[in-house]
């Protein structure tokens, strides 16, 4: 008898260890998965671009405004955690914590009827959360509303008094608190309470009263008090619609499923409890080890189709670009320079990285560059804001403050007070001499959770040197800006004007040369080469060298102080020989020369330039 008890105790201890080890292991893996595979910092860098930008300021006023309104606290929290995603570890911790509380709530709902026969079910909401974050569908407001609704429901089930009157009072208190925290979460809470009272506690009158009062409260909010109260699935559409971003079709479905998972769980659970309670073994039908396997299978099945390296790649390139980590960007993108997942915005980032690392003229054709990726026309499908921000950055570099200002404002109005845009607008106004206006943008920037340092940096500079005459960056940009009296009604770039204003305008010069190369306008390119007295390396950069060789070989006559190298001449002759054999068959030419000339201007000129087309 003693032995049996000891054995049983041992078995019980082992089983308990496994029961505890499972969640610990699961959430540890979860944390590492989010940290290393998803990389939440990419979500931060996508805010306002591919992801809704939740405004957040560190000021007391912003806090007071948020906490002074019903539903404000959850919005505040959602915005705060979105901005905290800047730190990869914080993002992973936040996701894991939300997942943990979802798991805890689900477990609690399962435990209402004291059955643990399908313990892995409690991990399903976490899996849904992982699916969302794997697809970079960041919906913190909705997730937090669901979570708060659940936590309040769990609190209700644990502490609800027995007498209907006190239960009603308790419910009112919880509803009031939840309504203040998150208006929309109340709908789920009330629904769960009604089901709980109806199915599990069999208090039909009480459940009916709660249902009627809940509907009345909902209608009163919507139609009497003008309170924006909606079922969550509607809010999903609203958040997504606000930025005209079309997420994958699974995203709203997952959220919708997550929302109704809990009421459904309550119903199914109660049905099982009623009929099969006695037949269930103490530790459930399914042994913990099998549950681990089931859980792993579910996770892999759900996450595998969602995980898309092609979606992560552009986000990563954008993150490097926003942090101005140009060498890292080139290293990362260089692992697969002609990747199909790269769109023209990514290539634009690469062009800018090359420009900042003084490698544009040398390496431009090592990448799938095109005229569109340089100039970013208006019709960049589905990426309008991305285009606005990049154009604003690019035109500032050239000293086109008017054009840059327009793009920056449009971005600000459409996609929120993003730090980079605020800094751009401050710089533009400092260059123009509108210091008071710049101070407004810097004041807002100084309240940014992550980039407040940039705001304070500029404000300190302004305090010491209000005219900014001693600031190198501003002085340089001012030297590029066209005369204020030049009020031409045309926002198209005019490199000639910019270079006439300041021949040392590096951005205008390099982008102009790139544009002539990309359009195949070798006459203008060759003439423009005369602007260069020297190059950093002492010789023509590779792309320029090849273009000049090609120009001479094809009979170009424009005078130029530079001569192409013999090597480029030789390569050019070889390429032209192959081109002659292929005649007008560009496809054949491409395949014949791709291997040897894939990263050369010769191939680009014959295959991609608009003139050749």
């Amino acid at each position, binding site marked *: 008898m003693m032995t049996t008890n000891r054995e049983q105790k041992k078995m019980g201890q082992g089983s308990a260890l496994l029961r505890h080890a499972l969640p610990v292991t699961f959430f540890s893996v979860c944390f590492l998965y989010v940290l290393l595979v998803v990389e939440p910092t990419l979500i931060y860098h996508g805010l306002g671009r591919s992801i809704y930008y939740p405004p957040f300021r560190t000021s007391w006023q912003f806090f007071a405004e948020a906490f002074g309104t019903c539903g404000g606290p959850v919005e505040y929290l959602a915005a705060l955690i979105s901005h905290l995603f800047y730190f990869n570890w914080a993002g992973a911790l936040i996701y894991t914590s939300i997942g943990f509380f979802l798991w805890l709530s689900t477990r609690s709902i399962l435990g209402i009827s004291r059955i643990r026969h399908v313990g892995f079910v409690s991990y399903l909401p976490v899996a849904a959360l992982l699916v969302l974050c794997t697809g970079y569908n960041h919906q913190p407001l909705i997730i937090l509303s669901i979570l708060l609704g659940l936590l309040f429901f769990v609190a209700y089930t644990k502490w609800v008094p027995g007498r209907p009157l006190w239960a009603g009072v308790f419910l009112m208190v919880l509803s009031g608190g939840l309504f203040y925290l998150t208006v929309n979460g109340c709908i789920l809470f009330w629904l769960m309470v009604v089901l709980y009272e109806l199915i599990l506690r069999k208090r039909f009158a009480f459940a009916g009263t709660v249902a009627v009062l809940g509907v009345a409260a909902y209608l009163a909010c919507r139609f009497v008090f*003008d309170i924006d109260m909606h079922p969550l699935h509607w809010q999903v559409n609203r958040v997504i619609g606000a930025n005209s971003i079309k997420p994958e079709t699974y995203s709203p479905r997952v959220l919708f499923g997550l929302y109704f998972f809990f009421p459904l769980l309550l119903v199914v659970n109660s049905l099982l409890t009623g009929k099969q309670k006695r037949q269930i073994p103490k530790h459930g039908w399914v042994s913990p080890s099998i549950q681990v396997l089931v859980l792993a299978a579910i996770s892999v099945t759900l996450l595998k189709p969602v995980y898309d390296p092609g979606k992560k790649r552009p986000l990563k390139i954008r993150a490097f670009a926003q942090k101005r980590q140009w060498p890292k960007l080139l290293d990362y993108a260089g692992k697969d320079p002609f990747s199909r997942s790269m769109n023209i915005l990514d290539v634009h980032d690469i062009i800018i990285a090359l420009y900042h690392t003084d490698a544009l003229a040398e390496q431009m054709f090592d990448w799938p560059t095109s005229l569109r990726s340089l100039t970013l026309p208006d019709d960049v499908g589905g990426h309008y804001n991305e285009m606005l921000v990049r154009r604003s950055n690019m035109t500032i570099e050239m000293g086109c403050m008017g054009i840059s200002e327009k793009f920056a404002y449009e971005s600000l109005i459409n996609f929120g007070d993003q730090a980079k845009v605020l800094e751009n607008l401050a710089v533009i106004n400092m260059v123009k001499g509108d210091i008071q206006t710049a101070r407004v943008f810097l004041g807002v920037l100084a309240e940014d959770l992550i980039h407040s340092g940039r705001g304070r940096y500029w404000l300190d500079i302004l305090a010491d040197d209000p005219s900014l005459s001693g600031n190198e960056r501003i002085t340089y940009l001012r030297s590029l800006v*066209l005369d204020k009296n030049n009020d*031409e009604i045309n926002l198209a770039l005019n490199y000639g004007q910019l270079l006439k204003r300041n021949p040392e305008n590096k951005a205008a010069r390099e982008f102009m040369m790139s544009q002539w190369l990309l359009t195949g306008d070798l006459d203008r390119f060759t003439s423009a080469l005369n602007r260069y007295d020297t190059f950093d390396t002492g010789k023509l950069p590779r792309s320029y060298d090849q273009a000049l060789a090609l120009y001479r070989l094809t009979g170009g006559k424009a005078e130029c102080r530079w001569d192409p190298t013999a090597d480029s001449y030789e390569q050019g002759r070889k390429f032209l020989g192959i081109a002659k054999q292929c005649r007008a068959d560009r496809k054949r030419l491409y395949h014949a020369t791709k291997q040897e000339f894939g990263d050369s201007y010769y191939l680009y000129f014959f295959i991609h330039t608009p003139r050749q087309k």
Partner: protein
Amino acid sequence: MMKKRIPMLVAMVLCIISIVVLLGQRVRIPGDYVTVAGALRIEPDYTDSTIPYNIAPLNFNIRHEAEEYIVSIYPSDNSGSAINLASKNGSIVIGPGKWHRMLGASKGKEIIFSIYTRDAAGQWFRHDDIVNSVSEHPIPGYLAYRHLKPTYNWWRDIDILQQSLESSKVSTIIDNSACDDTCVNCHSFAAGNPQTMAMGFRSSKNGVGTLIYSDGELKRLSAKWGYTSWHPSGKLAAYSMNKVKQFFRRTGMEIRDVVDLDSAIAYYSLEKGKAIKIDALAEKDYLETYPHFSPDGKYLYFCRAPILWEDRNTVPPKRFKEVRYSIMRISYDVDNDIWGELEMVLSAEKTGKSMLVPRVSPDGRHMIFCMCDYGCFPIYQSSSDLYTMDLQTRQVRPLEILNSPYSESWHNYSNSGRWLVFSSKRQGGLFTRPHFSYIDDAGNARKPFVLPQRDPEHYYKTLQTYSVPEFMIEPAIVSLRALSRNIQMKDWIIKVNQPISGATKKYGEKTQLETNER
């Protein structure tokens, strides 16, 4: 017995501690200080202005490096107790109760702001006092304005707000996120009374139209009203119809510009439920805009300029920089609904400038207007300044004390004629902020002051502009929900078939605008 006394003793101890703490926090004016010549710079600039006795506290920041700041505010005759405030960061926030009591007792007097600063060595300095006069004329209780970020090609987060001028409390009249991000604009009130008001809206989803609220009823018109002026009787409103286009320039302080390719003026009769064109104000070869009824209702003032281009679609049209508006008026008999003859009030040929937004003082003696280099949109013209005309002598002079190197525009008188509100971009040239000025018997303006806010740093932390400021005698009573629901309605309550510009018809040519009331 002892047990019962314990809570009472605890309460008494707590009370005593609270009193000691409160007394300890009472601000003491330094007795030993060095007097320094020159006043400190405060932001917003609340110095040498005339303020109404019912204005909200003028909270401000002291722009001076110091370890500690003490401000004492008191009436010039030292009657009543002073408001003493201390700050570690120079931010001075005045309690509304004491402020209103002090201003109420200081009508017609001056109030003094004495500022003391302490340096790191512990030495106190007293700087020159700041003086403001308190007018015995109250300012209207509310200000309505459009609150939005500087717009270029897009609009989002546009609100029309109302702010109490006595408490700085802000509430929403309409928030465009409640109506599918529809652009809401051109709000106007009959004699500052929101019981009769109009508001424009436009969006691809909800269409283009106007909401009118009068006699407790909200109507949705299918015609878009531009700049609107209500007749003092409240029976009708004159409005402009503008074919307005925005374009951009490459450089400059303000790269945005606006041109009216075509425009005309019509009016809407509430009694007839009908939009009616004023033929004299819809001439083919002229641009007519900015209608404004004189306070006696006998004249409609407006701006007019010849159209200098044949092509009414090209933006910008050629010679747009040569467009200069004159101010004209036309008499009106409201009883018989008869319009009189046109009369030139101030010719652009005479001034060589473009004159816009005429506003006649309630006593009918003066007219304040904007004068800028060219065009129809003073808010984008840094050259736009406020001028006044004596309507008896027809003498014109600039209101220099109100003007800055930046744009001043969108001015409005209070019903008493004592207060003027106008938009100024003096804070750097981009953001418009509402400013108020006291107007004396002779029509002279006093130094303006910006709309007070609870947070003294407010104007350095907000990216929103305040456009089209309008005085209101009371808050709007029509609900946000009613407004947004009406904007989102599928059917027009009043369908007005109205061409974009009646200006395409020649003067004298009769046109009846079709109107169907449902």
